[in-house]
């Protein structure tokens, strides 16, 4: 194990924890951001802005309920528009969180420890944003509960062959598991904060949230078991949720939708956009809150590599769509692809999508772009846009299907944008609250990255070290002997 060696005196660019970090400094850096740090101007400004934008969502939904989905630009043939584009986009963004938390945990990728909390929070808010759309895109959202298999006197059940039905289960399961996973992971840190808090109110709140965590070995053992089980539950969800979301398209019979490649291609795309979103969020937050030592360039570099890999999978998906259109010999598939790329009114979006998702991210092959925060931030924004455009392009194939007589076009209205931008406001509103109220980085998991956390660690001539550790990590560090993962 790399941590078996003494921490080098110089800063190692591959290090997962910056130089000079001890249990204490980590606890202080992360914990104080919640407990001691005053509400600063940056956060307040961001929060106020997000709150204002959130009102746009509230207004749109109110108007939607009073007037109807006709306030959007949807029509026949475009039964779906921004509603489903944004649903898929948000769900996709959520995937990185689960991937980082669960899959990387199971795969012993220790670098996940300093970003998983953040990514999980992102997942939850992204899924909440996503969930708004299928609910409110219904013509009669007040009957949304009809999609649930509730026993009733009329013996009416949902129609289990419909992918929308599967969505209900997929998304609600995903949200539930994600929230549980996040909360369970937070318990040791809540206990840490409880112990650090001086204000009795804060102490009480974190006391309740920490569920009586005392850091005993028994606690750690149970915690470990629960966390692994949840990781095991989440892992298939990473694959299944977006697979099922892709079924909304793949199960239909429309040219451009009816494609067997959709599930893997959607999952790759989801992870792609999720990592892009994590980068978009982490890069500024890291510098605002001085977390460079916890989220190091190693993390950033790894995320950029994952982005590059998944991006290539997505590009493979695009190539297969084009190939299958040609290879199938199917008139409608060919016409669809012709319209998508050249003849149709939305061809600009297709080329923009290729630029954003296929061309620009290739810069990440170069270390310079993976290490330069400015460029990486820009690329992450480009990928977010590109992945949104991907869903846009998929939905816009509705404009020209089988019968030329029913071709039409779709233009989002101010209310489509209102719901979209409003949901971004909702997302940032949630994320900013999270940054303020909850340790945004998992304290104890980062501490585990320190050499001191290794049970076989032999501090060079420092007898005090263990004791310091005990003081600094009264909750998470007590069972120093446990193996994480």
């Amino acid at each position, binding site marked *: 194990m790399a941590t078996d060696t003494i921490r080098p005196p110089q800063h190692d660019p591959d290090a997962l924890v910056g130089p000079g970090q001890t249990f204490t400094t980590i606890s202080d850096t992360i914990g104080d951001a919640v407990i001691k740090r005053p509400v600063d101007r940056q956060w307040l400004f961001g929060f106020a802005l997000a709150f204002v934008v959130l009102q746009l969502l509230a207004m749109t939904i109110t108007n939607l309920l009073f*007037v*109807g989905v006709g306030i959007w630009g949807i029509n026949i043939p*475009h039964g779906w528009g921004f509603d489903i584009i944004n649903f898929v986009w948000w769900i996709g963004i959520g995937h990185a969180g689960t991937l980082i938390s669960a899959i990387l945990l199971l795969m012993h990728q220790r670098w996940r420890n300093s970003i998983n909390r953040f990514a999980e929070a992102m997942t939850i808010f992204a899924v909440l944003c996503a969930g708004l759309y299928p609910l409110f895109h219904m*013509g009669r959202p007040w009957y949304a509960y009809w999609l649930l298999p509730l026993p009733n006197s009329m013996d009416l059940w949902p129609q289990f062959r419909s992918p929308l039905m599967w969505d209900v289960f997929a998304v609600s399961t995903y949200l539930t598991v994600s929230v549980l996973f996040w909360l369970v992971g937070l318990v040791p840190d809540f206990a840490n904060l409880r112990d650090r808090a001086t204000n009795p109110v804060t102490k009480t709140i974190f006391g309740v949230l920490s569920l009586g965590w005392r850091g005993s070995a028994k606690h750690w053992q149970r915690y470990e078991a629960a966390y692994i089980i949840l990781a095991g539950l989440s892992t298939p969800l990473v694959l299944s949720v977006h697979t099922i979301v892709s079924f909304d398209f793949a199960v239909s019979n429309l040219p451009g939708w009816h494609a067997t490649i959709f599930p893997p291609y959607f999952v790759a795309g989801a992870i792609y956009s999720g990592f892009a979103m994590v980068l978009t969020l982490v890069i500024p937050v890291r510098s605002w809150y001085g977390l460079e030592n916890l989220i190091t360039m190693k993390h950033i570099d790894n995320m950029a590599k994952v982005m590059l890999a998944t991006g290539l999978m997505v590009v493979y998906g695009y190539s297969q769509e084009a190939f299958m259109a040609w290879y199938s010999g199917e008139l409608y598939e060919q016409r669809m692809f012709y319209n998508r790329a050249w003849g149709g009114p939305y061809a600009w979006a297709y080329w923009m999508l290729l630029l954003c998702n296929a061309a620009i991210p290739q810069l990440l092959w170069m270390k310079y772009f993976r290490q330069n925060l400015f460029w990486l931030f820009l690329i992450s924004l480009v990928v977010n846009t590109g992945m949104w455009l991907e869903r846009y392009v998929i939905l816009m194939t509705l404009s020209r299907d089988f*019968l*030329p*007589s029913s071709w039409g076009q779709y233009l989002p209205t101010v209310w489509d944008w209102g719901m979209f931008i409003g949901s971004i406001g909702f997302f940032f509103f949630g994320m900013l609250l999270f940054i303020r109220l909850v340790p945004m980085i998992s304290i104890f998991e980062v501490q585990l990255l320190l050499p001191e956390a290794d049970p076989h660690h032999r501090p060079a001539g420092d007898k005090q070290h263990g004791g310091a550790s005990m003081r600094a990590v009264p909750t998470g560090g007590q069972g120093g002997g446990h193996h994480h993962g």
Partner: protein
Amino acid sequence: MNSRKDLPLDLAAVQQTLDQATGKTYWRSLEELANTPAFEEMLHREFPENATEWAGDEPSRRRFLTLMGASLALAGLAGCTKTPNEKILPYVIQPEGILPTRPQFYASALTLAGQVTGVLVESHMGRPTKIEGNPDHPVSLGATDTFAQAEILTMYDPDREAAVSHLGVPRGWDDAFNEIGAAVDAAGDGGERVRILTETVVSPTLADQFKNLLESKRFAKAKVVVHEPVHATAEAATLKAVFSEDVTPVYHFDKAEVVVSLDSDFLCGPGASLKYANAFSARRRLKPGEGLGKTVDALHRRMNRLYAVEAMISPTGSLADHRLALKPSEVEAFVRALAAKLGVANVKDADKLDKKHEKFLDALVQDLTKTWDEASHSFKESRKAGTTLIVPGPYQSAAVHQLAHAINDKLGNLGQTVTFVEPAEKLPIKPEQSQTVEQLVADMKAGKVDVLLILGGNPVYAMPKATGFADALGKVKLRAHAGLFADETSAQCHWHLPLTHALEQWSDARAFDGTATIVQPLINPLYNGKSYHDILTGFTADPAVSSLDVVRAYWKKWYDANKAGLQDARSKEDFELFWKKSLRDGVIEGTASKAKTPGYKAPDFGGLAAGGEFEILFRPDPALFDGRYANNGWLQEFPKPLTKITWDNVAHMSVATAKALGITQTLGRRGGEHGETYIDKVDIEVPGVGKVNVAAWVVPGHADGSVTLTLGYGRTRAGRVSMSPERGVIGVDVGDLRKTASTWTAPVGKANVVRAGGKHLVACVQAHHSVEGSDLVREATFEAEAHDDHFHWHLKIHGSGHHAGHGNAHDAEHPPEKQEAEAATSATSGRIPLDNILPPIPTPPQAQRWGLVINLGACTGCSACVIACQAENNIPVVGKDQVNKGREMHWLRIDRYYAAEKGQDLDNPNAVETHHQPLPCQQCEKAPCEQVCPVSATVHSDDGLNDMVYNRCVGTRYCSNNCPYKVRRFNFLAYQEWADDSLRLMRNPEVTVRTRGVMEKCTYCVQRVRAAEVEARREAREIRDGEVLTACQAVCAMGAITFGDLGPQGQTPKTDAAKLRASKLNYTILDELNTFPRTSYLAAVRNPNPLLVSHGEKKG
């Protein structure tokens, strides 16, 4: 413009109106009765759904406040208003035959510009809800046209004027009769300075009343003027010149083997088109059972051939086997050349036809005179005389009519395919008491008219400005207008008298062949109106005499004179029985006009009238006709047969003309091809007459160098549908370009038609016109197979896949051979053999397998079925803005595709082929919509129908996305009219009214199916074939739609629908998707002239 503008609330007037109101009054507050502008404004805002400005889905703050204000104000007013005194009583003794839930049908007749259609009106508990054709009526034969279907909405129109008013102040009928009567008495001796302007009189009773009126002392010197905005004036005058007497021609399409239409839309236009369509299509339609075997000799023998020569492509022209696009002056040149070639004497200017049409002309001449001999592959034997028919169009010049009948005479058609009867419409008044409109205008200008009674019509709008009618009207001292609406004419009149609708009154009407029908009321007048009969009675006799009395008295007199000739024995005995039988049948026995055999006398045909570089054609609009339907939402939103444009009129022109003018067209991004097109406007000027600025529209197949404009738009006072404070007037009044009311063509110079600045937003529901390589429309032609000394005929099917479309990128992928092979497979089996993992859907042994077969060869695209479907199924009107967004609600649409012959493009109007394809729900057996609905809101019934459960629908719209035919319609907003009393009465109670957020679609009129099932079960029998007619099927004069039980799979077909389905011509569209549609199509059988077909090249 509105004389009412500044009137305060006049309580005295209100009280008076209330006192005089009889029957039901549908008023809601004092202000409404007083008709203050403020209240009108408020009403317009309060009841927004039926299609006016509500359409916007981004309600402005301003409108929100207005709405709030209006609602509060209304609430306040409602609080201090007494509830109308309405009594409801249960039936103590239930009237015979009236059962709740079971509709009654009453025979009646509807009149439109002198054209009479016999109808059966469906009535639910005293509310008329739907109009069907009367199968016993010789003109209707069970079908109706678009306008008749929409009359229901006109009757219930909440904008109909409800009060007699004088200068905008509500008054009573007694006042009106007294005060107008006094003015008549003051207008000279015997009403010398009185004029009565009336619409075409087709009611014999009314004609009789006019006669009596003008014989009365009071009106002895008054004059009557007949004015009909859309009337075949040239035809009537010409016929008199040619045949020396007034005659009405009757065409016999059943006897005609070759038909030439000279700009005559005889299958769908005004006149006897329903009767003609029936006869014409009977010769072309595949009969059930035909086409099952290999040969179709019977169909080949029966098949006629249609040539159409016209400028603007008409529904008839789009069905023609050969069509030549010529502008009006060229049409005349064509007839001259044709007449000369056929040997008509004294034809001048016979060489003025462009030489490039020589081939067409020669082939036509051969076809008109000889019959085809397949063995020698040439026209050989001479054709039997009297088996062809030349039909001149009503808007053609007198010379065209004269020459057409000269040709008919030459070909021996007179007395065979063309016969004559006495004209049905005739006002039996002395010539000196009759005036033309021109004379009336002159008299008005000269101040010779003191009192003008305008009975019906809207002459201020309909008379072209150039006639000066509207200006001269101001000189008349007392002007009274009787009409359904307070329109442009009433705005310029002192008195407005509300008329009753045809469904609210007793009257009678004679069809073009003389057959009379009693018009019976289906409901008490909704709006305090009186009929023409009542109004004429009011001026002459006791106003208490009802129109029923008048009509009965007329027919009693007729009965006494004619009862000896009646066939029906019981009618002979007793007038009461005769009356009841006439009412029930909707046809009065023995009223058909006598046949006439006038002698033909060749007139002097004169020389060819000079054409212009551009020729402007004026035609009645397929939706608004002459403008009278401007407030009818169904018709405003009616996608016009060829252009698919709603809510607008445009200048139709050919592709080449549009290119020459530099017309460009862009699609909007909201609805795109499905609703939003921006197109350049053109300035059109007729020198010395006027100028209009109107949107251009490109119609492939339109003759070059001509522009067709339609009447009826640009109404300034027509009610809330046609105009609103925000949107203003809909369309452009092209009357400004017409010199007289009978101007149908105006030749102008090149400089008079120019592109103007600015684009116009057109709500066109199908802007894409190519099939894009898909095999959607198929045609079939006869192919001969030699057999000893004779030939057997079978059909060769051509799919549209190799038909080309215009700019089709995928031709190479679908070589013709492959298409044909597929077509053949599909046509025989109806299925293509593909493995399907879904198990077949079991049909219970007892259940029917309902199916619909649509004969593309019999569809003219006239779209009457679209309105019939709308009326039957309570389909809402959504307004232009919503159509722009691609959200129109028609359950049945007619797709229209263009194709060009191979080597040609759409620039050549003569190479353009127009295909119509009605598209209702395909009722797939394996419906893609059903699988994706998360709540089972769309499911299969036992008999295989794809049902929509509105109550269960949550509105995910997935079903619509997954429907390859895109036949589903979604209530994006609250489109249905929920607030208006009168429109609520109109609805078909058998069909659920859909709410916001719910998907809907064609159900095959499942309410009719279920009603028939109940009936059959009650009588313990099977449902008979043909017992259930869908609304679209019932209305179709061409008989293009057949509905019925397809019977168990694999068994011998029993019903008509099953037999047609089994025919070789039958195919389903997109069957490669394994949807197994129950709606199928019969390839259109074409009968081209062999001389005009180059073999193997008819592709596109």
